[in-house]
């Protein structure tokens, strides 16, 4: 920034102004989050006042037009599909980061990293469309109906894989060189160095990346909506269709009125609660790492 003459002569005034601007911006961000939660509460009030809260978990099914508001199958579907995707993307992402750092020749790893970064830029609807027209028919010819929890997990994995891989790669790059040299000086094998030195040192960063990816997986809407079948039910196998909370909102919001609409805002409220819980776990974890 180029300072005008006046402000160079009194840097403290410029500082004060900058501090004011920054705190205003920070306050705005906090206020937006608060307003979102208040808005969700306000919009879901008509149904929260009339329907007992526990019924959102205990109702047998989701038929808002007939007065049934069971969210439990969708909550479960959201959690299971995200967990499955995290498991796959976590394994693949960390493995690819390790390959990049420790096994690949530098030119190959540079290209590989660019490729992964490109993957991160692909919009989710493209993954969804690909899943719907390619992946679902393949699985349908094997285990109908094809659109299922499994396809949801696979498409989510593709979407969050770059996040995990790139952050794990950055965390491994941040491991101090001196640790690795020390390991080499002790005559440790490459696998010993990776398992005993690099991974423990990069653990915090890798887990932070996975938690970030978890937030994206929980909130993903369009791709999951296109490939998971959207039937409200508890899945008994990987091949059963499921509906996530986000897909529920996207599917029905455009045409919902009255109590149905309010019940959809309750879906949003539950989802927001879930994400806040995740953020708290992440913060807690960061704290432990700091002190430990």
């Amino acid at each position, binding site marked *: 920034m180029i300072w005008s003459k006046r402000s160079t002569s009194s840097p403290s005034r410029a500082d004060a102004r900058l501090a004011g601007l920054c705190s205003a911006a920070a306050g705005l961000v906090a206020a937006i989050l608060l307003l979102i939660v208040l808005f969700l509460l306000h919009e879901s009030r008509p149904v929260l006042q009339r329907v007992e809260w526990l019924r959102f978990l205990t109702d047998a099914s989701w038929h808002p037009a007939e007065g049934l508001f069971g969210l439990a199958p969708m909550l479960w579907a959201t959690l299971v599909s995200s967990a499955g995707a995290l498991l796959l993307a976590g394994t693949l992402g960390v493995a690819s980061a390790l390959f990049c750092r420790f096994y690949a020749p530098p030119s190959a790893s540079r290209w590989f990293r660019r490729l992964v970064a490109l993957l991160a830029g692909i919009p989710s609807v493209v993954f969804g469309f690909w899943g719907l027209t390619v992946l679902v028919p393949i699985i*349908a010819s094997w285990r109908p109906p094809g659109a299922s929890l499994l396809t949801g997990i696979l498409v989510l994995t593709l979407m969050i894989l770059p996040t995990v891989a790139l952050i794990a790669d950055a965390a491994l790059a941040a491991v101090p060189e001196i640790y690795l040299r020390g390991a080499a000086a002790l005559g440790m094998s490459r696998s010993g160095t990776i398992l005993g030195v690099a991974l423990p040192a990069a653990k915090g960063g890798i887990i932070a990346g996975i938690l970030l990816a978890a937030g994206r997986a929980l909130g993903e809407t369009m791709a999951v909506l296109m490939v998971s079948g*959207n039937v409200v039910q508890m899945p008994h196998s990987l091949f059963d269709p499921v509906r996530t909370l986000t897909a529920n909102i996207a599917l029905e919001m455009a045409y919902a009125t009255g109590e149905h609409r309010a019940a959809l805002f309750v879906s949003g409220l539950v989802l927001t609660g879930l994400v806040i819980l995740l953020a708290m776990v992440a913060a807690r974890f960061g704290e432990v790492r700091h002190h430990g």
Partner: protein
Amino acid sequence: MRLKALTTTLCGILILMLLTASVALAVEQKLVLTGSSTLAPLATEIGKRFERQNPGVRVDVQSGGSSRGITDARSGLADIGLVSRALKEEEKDLKSFTVARDGIGMIVHKSNPVRELSDRQIIDIYTGKITNWRAVGGPDQPITVVNKAEGRSTLELFLHHFRLKNSDIKAQVVIGENQQGIKTVAGNRNAIGYVSIGTAEYEASQGVPIKLLPMAGVAASVENVRNGSFPLARPLNLVTKAEPQGLARRFIDFSRSESVHDLVEAQYFVPLAR
């Protein structure tokens, strides 16, 4: 200083907002339409075009179901009611004007040898009593039932026609948009679904591997929806309390004219015969 520039911009935006607000206040004529959520998006689009052609007129559209359209038109709360069905006997005191027709057709994969399904068979498939294509003359394959998400007008019409409740239906896939339904059926040889006939006919002509099944012997085509012979269809009506006058008359004539046919087709409805 950047701050100064920011303040100037903010002031500019504020002034612009005030200006637009004062323009809105200057509007003298207002037309209120309420009713069917199926018809509301189309009415909104027609309203926008009507506003552009008639400066100083504002068209206000609110959805809330066909019954609200009837009630509001009767009580005078709305100038025009939106009703996405034919008027019942006890509603014949109102004047109705059909602007378009809405028809849905059953679709299966092109390779499916089944040529026709009776209403009974469709009900049995959708309620889970028939789960294999063999039972209706097809291959020995499990049926993938594709249903629409709650609140969609196509679902409403489907349930109404077959006298079903949504909770009776045992579906394997639930979809939102018509396009998603077509992609799902095109990608699954054993799927059955229902979508707006306009969309399905267009996609099938573009080589997408889907097949529209006839209903009660009538081919599922836009033409048959238009001439009223296709059973799974309904009229979309504008209703008024008395013979419409002035602005309401002009709006109704405009909605039924050829100049809005593109808007009707964009909502996957079928315009009236030209």
